[in-house]
């Protein structure tokens, strides 16, 4: 029964592979027969995807199914995992066997052969050192999709800080244009009221979410629009830790309100002259366009 062996190593490019038949294929299947059962930790390390060499994927390609193997298995570090499998391989040195033998038949990697072998060694070490911390289920993080609070990235006292305002910061979109709601869509606000700025933001593809009640959305992140009636608008964004931050005009990003307090909810924060709380909105990453 023929088998296809794929070196699972690349992320963007197709992985190199080779198909073996006859006695070579039979030899591979014999070497990969399951031996003793793996511990949960060893099985997890073998199955956990990492960048770089992740092991060999072996899949029978013939019509006859081998009763000792599932359809597709992964082997790394002498372990094999697959559907119903989490075992040591009968030959724990299978990868050495493969790279010294059948690997030489892989086409199209002539210039990469040395680098692949180096990466295989690096991947082995990485996998051995992989520290797995099982997260409790269900996972409870405040706002998994929200942007990080990284004020230093914006507060450069230069191009980024001076040319990006509260709208840029809240949407996490650096335009260097001091972005105005609706401008990119040709539907800029006409007065400094909730009724005018809100639809302008919707035109930029922000989604109105008046019932969000300070709760993070399943997709994207939460922002809040407030107004100094007749004078100005202002935006806040909710961060990954559940607290809000903002960038008042060309000044520095801060996570404090006008009383110097952290901001668990912009509706109750000291907002100075921005007395009108308009709404919560959702920014879906990659959807919006502002200018």
């Amino acid at each position: 029964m023929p088998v296809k062996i794929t070196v699972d190593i690349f992320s963007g490019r197709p992985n190199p592979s080779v198909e073996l038949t006859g006695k070579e294929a039979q030899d591979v299947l014999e070497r990969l027969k399951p031996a003793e059962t793996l511990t949960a930790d060893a099985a997890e390390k073998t199955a956990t995807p990492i960048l770089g060499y992740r092991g060999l994927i072996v899949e029978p390609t013939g019509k006859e199914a081998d009763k000792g193997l599932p359809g597709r298995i992964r082997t790394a570090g002498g372990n094999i995992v697959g559907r119903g499998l989490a075992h040591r391989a009968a030959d724990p040195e299978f990868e050495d066997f493969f790279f010294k033998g059948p690997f030489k038949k892989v086409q199209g990697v002539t210039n990469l052969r040395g680098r692949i072998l180096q990466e295989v060694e690096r991947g082995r070490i990485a996998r051995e050192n992989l520290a797995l911390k099982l997260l409790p289920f269900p996972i409870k993080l405040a706002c998994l999709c929200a942007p990080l609070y990284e004020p230093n990235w914006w507060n450069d006292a230069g191009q980024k800080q001076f040319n990006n305002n509260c709208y840029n910061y809240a949407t996490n979109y650096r335009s260097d244009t001091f972005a105005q709601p609706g401008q990119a869509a040709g539907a800029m606000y006409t007065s400094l009221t909730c009724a005018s700025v809100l639809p302008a933001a919707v035109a930029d593809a922000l989604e109105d979410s008046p019932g969000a009640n300070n709760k993070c959305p399943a997709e994207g992140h939460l922002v809040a629009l407030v107004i100094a009636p007749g004078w100005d608008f202002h935006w806040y964004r909710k961060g990954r830790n559940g607290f809000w931050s903002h960038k008042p005009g060309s000044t520095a990003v801060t996570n404090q309100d006008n009383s110097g307090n952290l901001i668990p909810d912009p509706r109750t924060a000291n907002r100075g002259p921005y007395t009108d709380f308009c709404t919560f909105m959702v920014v879906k990453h990659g959807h919006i366009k502002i200018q």
Partner: protein
Amino acid sequence: MGTSKSSEHAQAYVGSVSVFSGRPDPVWPLGEEQARRLLTLWESLDPWAGGAAPSAPPLGYRGSLLRGGGREWHAYGGAVTLREGPGVETRLDPGRRFEKLILSTAPDGSLPHPFLDQELHA
């Protein structure tokens, strides 16, 4: 960081107020006489010796500014801070005279007076 050279009065100076968040802050050009009066006033101010200069809350009025010749003066709460490249110098501004003198040069209608009045006349 003195500014006593008379030739610099001919340079272009602008006044501004740090007040908005979403909209761009107002900026206006200063006449030569207005700039001269401000620079003369700056020269007369005593060094700040009271620890950290006062800082404004993030939202609302945050002070008035004078810019020109690669320098920026930021006036707020009784102190004026001059930034020129990496250099920083702060001086006392009794009665907020420097801060108010900048604001007095703003064209009519350019300042959000409810913001400023609340701060300056508190």
